[in-house]
Each structure stands twice: as structure tokens, then as C-alpha cells.
């Protein structure tokens, strides 16, 4: 068993053990924190597909997070106010059912990723970074200035959406749902990395000209990666909105895009469990340092600087060494 595999199993064990312990001792707040960490991990896993496998430095992943959030918000808003989304050409009602919301969040954010990708992938390098950032701002300002769904104030959803057979208002049950999604996506990510598509994408990141010579289109590979990536992050956005029962334009903010990227980097780019480790560390720091000083972002910044300047490979890299997995 390699050291990275051992690290992954330990992380998995903690994801199960910590909330289980919290449930037994009645520490429901810890469960909420863990849910937050798992949802962030899911969002960052989405980015890791584009960034780690495809080498796409997207600084606008909050777009998909926000779209997922608003997909939940808009559907649930219409369901709780008993108004249809639209009456024409057919009446479409809102819904409080998580599976439907998830499906919509995934489809809409995948569509957004397709459209953004078609434009942004015309460019590479710094242009790509700046364009994804700019698209993020575009959605952010749109969400602020469009008053139908709360505008700048966002909107509250009074009751968490339902899942057949579960009571999602009980923290541990909602945590279970989020963890299940994370595991499914991680499994999918591991499969994807070893699939023909994953290998071709990996090659397109490292040597686009060679990929082109063997008859594959690197831009198309990256576009598909971005669509998958956006869909996963969109799903995380829908779950995050359900965790807070609130959506607002901050879900589109560029700081959030930056934070999602921070999760991936402090965990380890291209490592399967990198985003998970990064998101868990971030939420733990946010909770611990945030309790000591209101200015904990200063220390997060210092930590981040050190990781970038001196510690390549993030947390997974520190514990498991430089693996031969994706690098």
C-alpha cells in the first residue's frame, strides 16, 4: 500500500469517525462544520478535474457554485411560494425534492461551463485565468442587479429540501447525503483519471502539440473536462445552499473562486484526496483561528504563501511524498 493510499484511507476514516463521534456526544455543531468541509471538498474536487487533470487554471469556479446554489434557490422559492417558474409553453412548478434540484443544478452548470469554455478556451495561460475571473464577475453583478430572486440581499429558503426516506433537517442525515455524493464523485474522478479520456486529457495538459499529432483535439478534451468540472462544482453549490438554506450573490464572488482554488492547492493539485484534505484544513483553520482572532485571514495568507513558496504538493505531498500519480 503506497503512502498516498494510506493517507487517503486515513482521511476517509476521519470523514466517517469525526461526525459519528460528534453524533454520539451530541456536538451537532461539529457535524455542521464537517458538512461544510465535505461540500467544499466536493466543489474543490470539481475544480481539481479541470485544474489537476486538464491544467486549466480557472479563477471563476464560483460561477458554477453560484449557479448550483441559485438552481436550488429558485426551484425551492417557487415551491414555497406556490408559484410556477413559468406558465408558457407548459407550466413548470418549483420543487423541494433534492434529486430534482441536483439534476437541474448539474445540467445548468454544465451548460454554463460549456458556453464559458467555448469562449475562454480560445485563449490559454494568463488570458484564460483573467477571462474566467471576468466571467465570474459578470455572473456576480448579474445576480446583484436582477431583483426577481432577492438581488443583493439573496433569498432565504425556510425549510431544507427533502430526500425520499430521509429527514434532511437532522444534521447527521444531511451530512450522510453530502458524504455519499463526495465519495461517488471521488470514485468517478479516480475512474476518470485512468480512463482513455483521462489519459488523453493528461497528455493534452502536458504536450498539446503531440496530442494533436496523434489526431486528438486538445481543446475539445479540455472543454469536456471543464464541463464535468463545472457540473460537479454546481452540485456542490446546490448542497451548500441547502446547508445554509440561503443563497446570495456572494456564492458568485471572486473570493469564493479563490478559496476553492486554495482548497485544491493546500491539499495538493492533481491528487485525488488533495481537495478533501485542503477543504477540511481550511474549515478547521477557519473555526480554530477564527475563534482566536477576527483577522485570521492574515494567517491563512501567510500559510498559503509558505505552501506556494516552499512546500510543493500541498498536504498530500507533505504526508505522502511526490507521487507519480498525475505529475
Amino acid at each position: 500500500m503506497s503512502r498516498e493510499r494510506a493517507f487517503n484511507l486515513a482521511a476517509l476514516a476521519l470523514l466517517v469517525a469525526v461526525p459519528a463521534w460528534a453524533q454520539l456526544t451530541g456536538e451537532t455543531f461539529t457535524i455542521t462544520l464537517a458538512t461544510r468541509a465535505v461540500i467544499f471538498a466536493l466543489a474543490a474536487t470539481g475544480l481539481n478535474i479541470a485544474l489537476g487533470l486538464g491544467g486549466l487554471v480557472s479563477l471563476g469556479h464560483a460561477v458554477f457554485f453560484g449557479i448550483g446554489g441559485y438552481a436550488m434557490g429558485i426551484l425551492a422559492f417557487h415551491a414555497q411560494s406556490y408559484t410556477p417558474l413559468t406558465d408558457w409553453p407548459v407550466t413548470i412548478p418549483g420543487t423541494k425534492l433534492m434529486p430534482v434540484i441536483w439534476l437541474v443544478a448539474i445540467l445548468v452548470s454544465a451548460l454554463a461551463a460549456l458556453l464559458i469554455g467555448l469562449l475562454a478556451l480560445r485563449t490559454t495561460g494568463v488570458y484564460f485565468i483573467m477571462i474566467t475571473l471576468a466571467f465570474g464577475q459578470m455572473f456576480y453583478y448579474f445576480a446583484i442587479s436582477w431583483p426577481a430572486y432577492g438581488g443583493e440581499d439573496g433569498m432565504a429558503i425556510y425549510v431544507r429540501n427533502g430526500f425520499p426516506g430521509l429527514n434532511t433537517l437532522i444534521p447527521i442525515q444531511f451530512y450522510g447525503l453530502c458524504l455519499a455524493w463526495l465519495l461517488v464523485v471521488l470514485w468517478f474522478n479516480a475512474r476518470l483519471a485512468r480512463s482513455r479520456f483521462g489519459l488523453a486529457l493528461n497528455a493534452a495538459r502536458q504536450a498539446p502539440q503531440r496530442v494533436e499529432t496523434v489526431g486528438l483535439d486538445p481543446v475539445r478534451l479540455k472543454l469536456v473536462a471543464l464541463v464535468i468540472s463545472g457540473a460537479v462544482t454546481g452540485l456542490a453549490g446546490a448542497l451548500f445552499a441547502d446547508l445554509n438554506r440561503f443563497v446570495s450573490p456572494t456564492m458568485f464572488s471572486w473570493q469564493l473562486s479563490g478559496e476553492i482554488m486554495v482548497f485544491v492547492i493546500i491539499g495538493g493539485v492533481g491528487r485525488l484526496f488533495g481537495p478533501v484534505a485542503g477543504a477540511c484544513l481550511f474549515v478547521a483553520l477557519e473555526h480554530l483561528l477564527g475563534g482566536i482572532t477576527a483577522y485570521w485571514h492574515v494567517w491563512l495568507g501567510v500559510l498559503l504563501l509558505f505552501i506556494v513558496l516552499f512546500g510543493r504538493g500541498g498536504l498530500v505531498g507533505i504526508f505522502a511524498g511526490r507521487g507519480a500519480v498525475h505529475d
Partner: protein
Amino acid sequence: MSAILIAEQVLNGLQSGVMLFLMAAGLTLIFGVMGLINLAHGSLYMVGAFAAAAVAAATGSFLLALAAALAAAALAGAVVETVVIRRLYDKDHLDQVLATFALILIFSEGTRWIFGSFPLFLDIPPWLSGPVELPGGILYPAYRLALIGVGLAVALGLWLLISRTRLGVRIRAGENDREMIAALGVDISRLYTVVFALGAGLAGLAGALVGAIQSVQVGMGEPVLILAFVVIVIGGIGSIRGALVGALLVGLTDTLGGIFLPELFKLFTDPSSATTIGAALASMSIYVLMAAILVWKPTGLYGARA
């Protein structure tokens, strides 16, 4: 809609355009010479604004405040370049994005720590308050007119600096071939510090100038930073001329879009929903402009490198 209103809005667009240029010029210079993508440029804008507000509060002099803004931002830039940025030149863009994102966190929270969360105010000096009458009977605030003048003067100065001085020769040489000018005996790491401090000083100046018509607060730099990114993507990264053209395009589109799009939609729908749709679309208009230009020219109007 009267011609005077249109003229006023064009001037407003020009004013926000030249201020954007001060930001974008530094960004594009730093990218062109050092190949560095600097997210923390907005923090230097904020540093300038806070230094100006603090000095203006202590001395009451607006010109001293401007000088302080320029000096504080340039100094902060030189320090940051020597301590952190220097280590990033040979790293990939992802590392640069993260390290400069970390710098934003440190600058923003550090400023909040020192100055608190409440916005500061920087007053327009008395000799520039009040309107001036322009030809055609347009009354326009003297301060905003002065901003346009300062912005254009800086653009001219920058052009002279780069095309006519020894430093400018070195900067242009650094853009083309850094190994070669290092071999010719130019202290390349000092040149980089100077270029970074120059860009930082321009950002700080813009922060102080704009700080007098908006409030001075933590986080004021990032929206401007992102607009400046849009500007240099439109203009072509590394091109100062592109930055000027891009900044004016973005400034005018942003300002005129906010005024005319709602009017345009009033032709089709009722006034209240026209205002809503118009405002929502106006907030997106510069990004639509950027997307359109990229479809046409993927490396921007004046960009050469990909």
C-alpha cells in the same frame, strides 16, 4: 435625452477610463517585463488610498496626501517585490495566482486590523470642488475634469519614460530578452524592483484620486483590479497602448451602458422592467465587450504573445 447629458456621461466614462488606465498600465507593465500575473495590484491601490486618507487627515493637504499615496504604494510594492514576488518569476501562473491571492488576504486583513472596518473619507480639495463651465454650457465637476487631465498626463509621461529614457530602453529590452540584457551588465533584479514599484505607485495614485470621490475602505481594490484585468485582456497583455485603448473602451462602455441600456429597453417594455433589465445587462456589458473582442482577436487588440 439632451446632448448635455450625453456629453456629461461621455466625460464620466473618460474619467473612469483614465483611472482604470493607471491600474492597467502597472499590471500590463509587470506582466510584460516580468511575466507575472499580480492579483495583489488592487491591494496597492488600497494602500495608496489609505495612505492618502491618513495623511490628509493629519496635515489637511491634498497634494501631500497624493504624494504620500504614491510613495507608500511604491514602497509597499518594492518591499513586496523583494520579499515575495521575486521568488515567483520562474514559477508557473498557478503559483503566482495563489501567492498574490495570499498577499491580498494579508494586505486586506492587515489594513482592517490597523484602520478598522469603517470606511475613511478623503475630501476633494476646496480649490477643485465645485463645477466648471465647459464650452457648450456644460457644468462639470472640476475634480473629475482634473482626474481626466492627470490620467492623460500620466499616460503621456509613461510613453515618454518608455520611449525616450534609458530606463525605458531597459524596460523594453527586459520585455524582449531578459537573459541578453542581464548579460549586457544591467542589474536585472533591480530593474524588476523598479518596474514593480513604478506599477505599484501608479496603482496607489489611482487609489488616492478615486478615493476622494468614493469611500476609502478595505476591499476597494479588487473590483477595480478585475476591471483592470478586463482592460488588459481587451488591449493585449503587455501593451501599454492597448491598456489605454482598453481602459477608455471599458470606462465608456460601463458608464454609457448604465445610462442608455435602460432607455433603450423603454422602447420595448414598460419603464420599471426596462430599468431592471437595462441595469442588469449594463452590469454585464463590459464582459460582453470583452467576449466579443476575444472572439475576434484572442490575444487582445494590441497583443502579440498568447
